[in-house]
């Protein structure tokens, strides 16, 4: 075959593939937005589910997801940032750091259902928290940990060494340098990691199945040892195991839209911030 012709054919195929990927995204988002937008109103966002989850709203699920986000990041954010500071600023280049880094990488590749198993064995059964917000938060926190550590490490890496040297040369201690110079410089990037992990945590279903999620609760949780509803699990329930699947479809579309809005807003915000920072740095 003519080599120009084969090139043309190949390139057209690749371009079509690119178009296909865009089409897939548009069809998924479009499908959920078109079907969900008519469901969403003030009542949907602020009322409890009613009549076997076929009408009413998803307020308790929104609140539950909010609690889980706060709970998991209260635990994972400080731990992750501190751990990254340790491996990046303190620990040498020895095998300890290498092992820790390898283990964090592997932590990121563990399937989320395995986190759910672990959370159930340790937090729910062994520590006797029961199905509770705290058990779910700790499990989700573990899941978010690698994301936070990785973004923080990248943030620290991006701080020029001259900053550290200048501070040390002025007589500051290492800790002072980190507190007053390195962290402020790395802060915007660290926040990007935080936002990314909010997106991750709010969309996960498998880890909360056995650690916190409730099928339906008549009231909001009152403490950290209560069960809670959560958006992703609520969507799963509405889609597969409600009392009347056909009648609860509109509720499912609405829930999917709210969930997608939260997750994608977080992702877009993070990538917007990252891009802005990159531009600033390249100037």
């Amino acid at each position, binding site marked *: 075959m003519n080599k120009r012709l084969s090139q043309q054919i190949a390139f057209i195929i690749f371009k079509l593939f690119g178009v296909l990927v865009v089409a897939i995204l548009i069809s998924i988002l479009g499908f959920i937005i078109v079907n969900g937008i008519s469901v969403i109103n003030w009542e949907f966002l602020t009322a409890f589910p009613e009549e076997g989850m076929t009408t009413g709203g998803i307020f308790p699920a929104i609140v539950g997801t909010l609690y889980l986000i706060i709970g998991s990041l209260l635990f994972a954010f400080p731990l992750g940032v501190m751990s990254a500071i340790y491996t990046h600023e303190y620990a040498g280049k020895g095998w300890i750091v290498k092992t820790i880094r390898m283990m*964090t990488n592997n932590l990121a590749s563990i399937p989320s259902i395995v986190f759910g198993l672990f959370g159930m064995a340790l937090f729910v059964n062994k520590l006797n928290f029961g199905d509770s917000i705290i058990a779910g938060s700790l499990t989700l926190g573990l899941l978010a940990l690698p994301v936070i550590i990785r973004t923080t490490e990248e943030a620290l890496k991006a701080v020029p060494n001259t900053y550290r040297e200048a501070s040390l040369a002025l007589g500051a201690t290492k800790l002072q340098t980190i507190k007053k110079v390195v962290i402020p410089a790395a802060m915007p990037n660290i926040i990007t990691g935080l936002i990314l992990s909010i997106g991750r945590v709010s969309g996960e279903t498998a880890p909360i199945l056995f650690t916190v999620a409730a099928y339906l609760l008549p009231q909001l949780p009152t403490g950290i040892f209560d069960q809670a509803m959560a958006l992703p699990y609520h969507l799963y329930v509405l889609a597969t195991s409600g009392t009347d699947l056909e009648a609860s479809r509109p509720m499912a579309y609405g829930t999917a839209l709210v969930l997608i809005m939260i997750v994608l807003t977080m992702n877009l915000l993070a990538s917007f911030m990252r891009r802005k920072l990159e531009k600033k740095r390249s100037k």
Partner: protein
Amino acid sequence: MQKRKIIRRILDNITEKLLTISGAVTGIAILFITFFLFTEGAALFQSPQVEHGYALYVNSSNPVNTLQPEENKAIFDGEITNWNELGGKDGEIKIFRIDDAFQIYPESELGENYELLPAKLGEIISKEENILAFLPTQYAPQGAAVKALTAKNIQPKDYFLGKGWLPTATPVPLFGVLPLVLGTLLVSIVALLIALPLGLGVAIYLSELASDRQRRLLKPVIELLAGIPSVVYGFFGLVVLVPIVQKALNLPVGETAFTGSLLLAIMALPTIISVAEDALRNTPRAMREASLALGATQWQTIYRVVIPYAKSGISAAVVLGIGRAIGETMAVMMVTGNAAVMPQSLMESVRTIPATIAAELGEAPAGGAHYQALFLLGCILFVFTMIISISAEIISKKKNYKAH
């Protein structure tokens, strides 16, 4: 002044210790997870095959001393009906359950707290030489002519090579993981076969052909695809893909392994595209220019120079894509139909390992054999993904080695 300095130094010291501790904590978190999974899972092999708290009893004249799990299942399903099929004497197996005792004896004869029950049960078993009694050990029958079948623990062989997954069957549940492992591999590998050409094509397009504007459009699209929660993918699959697959292929149900593969292919795309694109981009400019200067077309340069150079990175993309597919839970659970049978074809329902855990753990009583069997499934999944992520690491390291 001096005092404040000392206090500050102590505080700083504490802060630095805290940093060290958190580094260590995250490092050992994975060890902790491993430890918990494996201790819970390995306990399965210390569990008896027969349902907890129960045992099987026969007449002492019966030469059969022990039964395999499959044999037990066949007996209670009515597939084996004669003792001679099990190496015993010729005679029809008479299954006896605790409820049957209440048919024979009125409750008044069994004593207030059933304290007379064991003796009565012993009587029944002594009288009937072809009996197979499934009874709670609490009321173990008493009598000279009663023999308990040896209660073996669950064998690793039965677990890893067993072809039946019937965790709630009584009296002997079957925990054979082969259908689940094969189901997982089938769905993931087919997903990869769909996603790989597509993902690689998009990666080539992004790294070699796209203009800046096209890249700026396509990159966020891929990021967004990666960000959609898996339960939303599952919902989309359930409502859109399942009916489409059912109609297009004229199947009785749309919830098949193939539907799961399609959905997983979409979900694995972002991973494959971004890893492969990075690999393609890392090909040195000089190599491309050398090829073009020799008169090769751009396409010839791509598939003769760029792709071979990026081979290890592309392999890493494949491996990571499989890893993403194997561990996926919610989406697969919602579209594959979840029939725990040996997969026969792509167009039938299958069940994967993660879906099994998610579907059954809620009903499995903590500490029971079923619960432990699910944890062991978690271990299998864990080992799979560890192998995958370590081999991806090794593959991408190889490339660095070559580059230096």
